[in-house]
């Protein structure tokens, strides 16, 4: 089983490399692939870990962490429409007010978080 999986994987990677050698500018692709590692391991992960240092000690750690994870994920998918330079091809491309939508989403998330926090606090008091 492991041998078959491994062999298939090596074959797939081999095909990928062969396909990459056939594109016009494989060196550029290699640079961007390495850049992907640098972007994550050197920037995104340390930032998240730094946030974790602050969150780790909190009493409402679970709720705060969940809010940060959801807000981070939503922000990540909102960034391309927010930051894309140049005019879209036509009025049906990027037709929404993405900044307003992002603010709405963050506000809704904040409201849910406050609700969950209050609920947790009330429950904690009830138990005591």
């Amino acid at each position, binding site marked *: 089983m492991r041998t078959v999986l491994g062999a298939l*994987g*090596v074959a797939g*990677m081999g095909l990928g490399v062969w396909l990459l050698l056939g*594109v016009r500018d494989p060196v550029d692709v290699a640079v961007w692939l390495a850049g*992907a590692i640098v972007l994550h391991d050197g920037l995104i992960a340390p930032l998240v870990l730094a946030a974790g240092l602050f969150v780790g000690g909190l009493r409402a750690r679970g709720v705060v962490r969940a809010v940060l994870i959801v807000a981070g994920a939503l922000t990540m998918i909102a960034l391309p429409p927010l930051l894309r330079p140049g005019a879209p091809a036509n009025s*049906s*491309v990027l037709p929404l007010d993405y900044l307003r939508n992002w603010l709405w989403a963050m506000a809704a998330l904040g409201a849910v978080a406050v609700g969950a926090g209050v609920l947790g606090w009330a429950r904690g008091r009830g138990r005591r």
Partner: protein
Amino acid sequence: MDSHSKVPAGKGKGEAPGLKGRFLADKGKATALKEKAATLKEKAAALRGKLPALGDKLPVFRGRLHDKRTATVIGRWLGIAVLVCFVTGVISHYVQTPGGRLVDVLPSRPSWGYRLTQGLHIAAGIAAIPLLLAKLWTVYPRLFVWPALRSVRHALERLSVAVLVAAGVFQLFTGLLNTVQWYPWPFSFVPVHFAVAWLFVGALLVHLAVKLPEIRAHWRRRAPATLETGDAADRRSFVLAVAAAVGAVTLTTVGQSFTPLRKFDLFAPRHPDHGPQGLPVNRTAAAAGTSQVDVDDWRLEVLGPRPYRLSLAELRALPQYEAELPIACVEGWSKSARWRGVRVRDLVERAGAPASSRVRVTSLQEGGAYRVMEMGRRYTEDPLTLLALELNGEPLSPDHGFPARVIAPNRPGVWQTKWVAKVEAL
């Protein structure tokens, strides 16, 4: 001859040593190398003695949930998302490739097939973003394992993980930016996204092969390997938060193709309600240079054994059929619409060619990769494949291909040729 053998290795520059001499000189080199190797080994041993000490001095990750059970739980969801992306992506690649050996094999049904597979491709890719980040966060401490490379096997394993991480981040990043038509990189997106997909899935299979025993040991919640860490409640809260993030990014984007959820479409690059005649477009008439088609001059040319030309009025006089078919774009958005027009098979038969002919359609548009489209026989003979004249009860607007456009079931939007000038039975 003998004098050569006395020349110390490295000093015989310029002189051409005889065969024997070279052999002896090499022998001398070999001894010197052996000595060097011995000293290196000693140094390595000394270093190894220091290594654990250095390892102890490095900071240690004391945070929780960087464990194998968490990696397994997040990893299997990520694995499913990646496999969905891969399979639907390969399907899309071959459906989008013009001509080729598959042209007569590609099926025209189910009519919503491409809409589903490409919608899944984009949705699974978006869902994979929080999953990939959570997975990488969980295993991040392993980036700093000490010693960094223990053996050749360990080095290869780490190399495969590097490829996996690079390809994963690269695919999600380039794919997401492609959906907003943003291309900051110097290479062309389609062939590179396709090639790196194979790299990604290959590295994933290698990773699964390497980690199989650990995945098995941590697969179940009550597995002994899982109980040791004692983080069950914290892990549940973390996994729930990641699940909430997956739900949030899906809910706020999937409305671009799953139209019942259009109200929650906050961040997708398209919205079902935005576009001429209530349907989004990619190439406008202005961009294609087809804004001003003179109806009196326009003729549809149909080529076959008995070629003919039809004016728009004559086309309208032929039997008209209705079809409810989606426009489904490779960028992930799709919307169904009501089309009305002439069956392509009727046009082809009228030209004396069989209804199961392969067909080439040419557009009025000036240039562009999709000006000429070829359609396999299974599309031509499908009664749902129309040369449409109307959209949702109105004549086509210029942006939707006035005076006539092709609409076929189970095909990507780029092959639903607009501003048709010529239909050729091959």
